[in-house]
């Protein structure tokens, strides 16, 4: 009997790597990719391979590349924007090539649900001229991972797996197989490992030839599947294939469908077969028209006149993620079926529940519901840090530049403590740029501990070197919180165990020449206030490290309570902090279940009505 396990897509990719005999794994966390590597880290000892959380994606890719140069099978994982950080090694690694299989898992986030943009890694793969797999399910993601290692060694090229959120964070019953043999290791010295202009030209030619070799291999790939049925066809890539199949079932329709699992380079055999047997084709894929544009080029090159629809003629949206409802509406419109209006109305939240009373005129409208945007957790130490810096510098209209992490949620009201957010590490550099042109204003940058090591450090050195007048606040919550509490160089912990070394952020700041460095506990508002005042008053670069563990990784041992006799109902705690544990109770304030007793509210209460209880 085959063994099946309930696996998340990311876990399935990790399992695929283990079955493929992976020898090295490296990553930097980022939603929706993080669990690929966390799973690999968990099994590193059992299956005897090397695994590291790297400081950033560029480093992770280079570590994996080094191992692959030496013949090892290596996997590296990141989210789509992480690939931008790794772009420098990637673009030339495609020229140099690899010996052992190198698989790059880059998770895309159409929506986006948890990202700063919706860039499409399939486009990036095309730019780098590297093959890419686009899985539709966890099972397929696992199978593709194994196939990607084989393809990588066949072509001597790094190969992409590009899952999206709806594969990464989908669980499925996945078949578990035995693990494979390991590659033998040994780096063989050869001038072809040293990129040089004259070599680059030759390698570029080779890389272009590998495109056609990859296309030929993909022509025989089991991940592409053509069902020829009617003179109208649909081509669907990745998870969009699932939505197409279900929408066709719902509409009780049968049409020709070409499922694409390898969007770049697009295999031409089945595409041409479909185009020659149909009058018109609709391409359905999320984000950019990667498959569609290649289909158009193939049709033109082969003199085929079939109509090709998709994003270029606005049938399929280019932004956001698809789902069955959207795809059904697209099909209704494309095939000219009746009844699309009713389903479009279902998308609008203000409408009555469509499934419940679709045909009833007397259905009450959905009432106005409370807004519920994500916010910092109850007791999050970042809240205290933002509160103190607002109190210290906001009255002078200081600019708060932000960064990527949980603390980006500092932008939400009532804190409203973030004026810019761009990408990893940009808080400090954006502040430096503003400070260069706004001499009379204070510029305060906020970034997390993991982000500091990722790309923040270069910006800090740059600020010191160029005599920037900024304050950098490192929100040091002793973990990489947003992505699931991964370790980083500031902790005595690596991906696979304990570490004797850790890198002290205050020590680093002093060593690079920052003259004012303070490290305080943000829960101690008085100490935090004193540090903030000194840092903001300092001319030049100052660094304040707000050090306190993320509440999600510590046990709650106390709670706060409100003495209703003393509470005057001024609501300062609720209005200034926006802590979700503080809730209105008539005219006064009550403290809910999620309180962890940080007592920041207790310290700002003007009448001392909030006290602590040890649990």
């Amino acid at each position: 009997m085959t063994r099946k396990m309930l696996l998340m897509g990311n876990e399935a990719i990790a399992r695929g790597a283990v079955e493929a005999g992976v020898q090295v794994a490296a990553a930097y966390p980022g939603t929706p990719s993080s669990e690929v590597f966390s799973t690999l880290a968990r099994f590193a000892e059992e299956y005897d391979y090397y695994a590291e959380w790297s400081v950033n994606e560029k480093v992770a890719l280079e570590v994996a590349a080094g191992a692959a140069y030496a013949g090892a099978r290596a996997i590296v994982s990141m989210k789509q924007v992480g690939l931008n950080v790794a772009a420098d090694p990637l673009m030339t690694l495609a020229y140099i090539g690899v010996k052992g299989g190198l698989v790059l898992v880059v998770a895309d986030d159409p929506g986006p649900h948890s990202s700063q943009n919706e860039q499409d890694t399939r486009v990036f793969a095309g730019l780098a001229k590297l093959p890419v797999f686009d899985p539709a399910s966890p099972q397929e993601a696992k199978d593709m991972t194994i196939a990607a290692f084989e393809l990588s060694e066949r072509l001597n090229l790094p190969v992409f797996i590009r899952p999206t959120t709806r594969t990464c964070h989908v669980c499925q019953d996945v078949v578990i197989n035995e693990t494979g043999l390991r590659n033998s290791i040994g780096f063989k010295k050869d001038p072809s490992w040293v990129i040089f202009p004259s070599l680059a030209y030759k390698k570029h030619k080779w890389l272009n030839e590998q495109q056609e070799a990859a296309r030929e291999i993909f022509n025989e790939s089991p991940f592409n599947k053509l069902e020829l049925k009617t003179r109208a066809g649909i081509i669907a890539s990745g998870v969009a294939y699932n939505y197409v199949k279900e929408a066709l079932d719902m509409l009780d329709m049968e049409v020709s469908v070409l499922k694409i699992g390898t969007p770049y380079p697009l295999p031409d055999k089945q595409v041409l077969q479909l185009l020659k047997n149909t009058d018109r084709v609709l391409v359905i894929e999320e984000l950019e028209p990667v498959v569609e544009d290649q289909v158009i080029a193939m049709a033109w090159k082969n003199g085929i006149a079939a109509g090709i629809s998709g994003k270029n003629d606005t049938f399929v949206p280019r932004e956001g993620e698809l789902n069955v409802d959207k795809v059904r509406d697209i099909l209704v419109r494309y095939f000219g079926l009746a009844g699309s209006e009713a389903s479009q109305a279902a998308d609008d939240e203000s409408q009555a529940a469509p499934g419940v009373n679709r045909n009833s005129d007397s259905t009450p409208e959905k009432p106005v519901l409370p807004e519920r945007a994500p916010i910092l957790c109850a007791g999050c130490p970042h809240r205290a840090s933002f509160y103190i810096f607002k109190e210290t510098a906001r009255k002078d209209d200081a600019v708060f530049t932000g960064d990527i992490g949980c603390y980006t949620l500092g932008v939400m009201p009532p804190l409203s403590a973030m004026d810019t957010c761009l990408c990893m590490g940009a808080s400090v550099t954006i502040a430096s740029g503003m400070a260069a042109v706004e001499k009379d204003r204070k510029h305060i940058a906020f970034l997390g501990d993991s982000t500091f090591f990722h790309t923040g450090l270069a910006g800090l050195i740059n600020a010191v070197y160029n005599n920037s007048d900024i304050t950098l606040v490192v929100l040091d919550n002793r973990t990489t919180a947003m992505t699931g509490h991964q370790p980083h160089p500031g902790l005595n912990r690596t991906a696979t165990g304990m570490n004797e070394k850790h890198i002290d952020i205050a020590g680093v700041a002093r060593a690079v020449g920052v003259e004012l460095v303070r490290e305080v506990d943000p829960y101690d508002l008085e100490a935090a206030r004193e540090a903030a005042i000194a840092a903001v008053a300092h001319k030049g670069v100052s660094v304040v490290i707000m050090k306190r563990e993320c509440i999600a990784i510590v046990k709650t041992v106390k709670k706060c309570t409100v003495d209703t006799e003393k509470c005057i109902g001024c609501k300062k705690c609720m209005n200034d902090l926006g802590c979700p544990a503080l809730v209105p109770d008539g005219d006064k304030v009550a403290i809910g279940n999620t309180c962890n007793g940080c007592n920041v509210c207790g310290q700002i209460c003007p009448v001392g009505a909030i006290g602590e209880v040890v649990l």
Partner: protein
Amino acid sequence: MRMDIVIAGVGGQGTVLASRVIAQAALDAGLAVRTSETIGMAQREGTVTSHVRIGEPLYGALIPDGSADVLLGFEMAETARWLHKLKPGGTVLANSARIIPVSVASGRSKYEADTIMEYLRSTTDSLTMLDATELAIKAGNYRATNTVLLGAMSTLPCLPFKSKGLLSALLETIPAKLRDINSRAFELGRQAVEV
């Protein structure tokens, strides 16, 4: 046998654990399964949903509008927010407890509980509400709210697996030290809706 279940709640309430447990119970019963969960930024006190799809034919993990057999609501307003996922005649099982968002506490938004309750009552054929948070506190920890609701759900006759199967999937998923509280919470959930 096909069954689609949508779980709606607030980030931090344990909707992900609940969907995993249901999926594991289905897998243990030999059924194909898919779940899709909200992981990432929205987990921080935002609105979250988990989708669980059981039985062939199975394509994507996202449940289309108007087609869930069961809506398991972890919070009252969130149940109303995702009611459009329910199919005509579908079953709603929901927590009557409310989580007041910061937007309401700081006066930028309103939580009109009576209107929401009335809307839930008047638009559904099969609605069962219970104070799952209160029952979880009775079992030993408010965090077991998700387990109380799983216990309540285990009484539904339409489930493709046995109540015992759901409980054992739950107990195998959570750490050993939490088994007592969760067993109690599951049972309290069952008792609350059993007629």
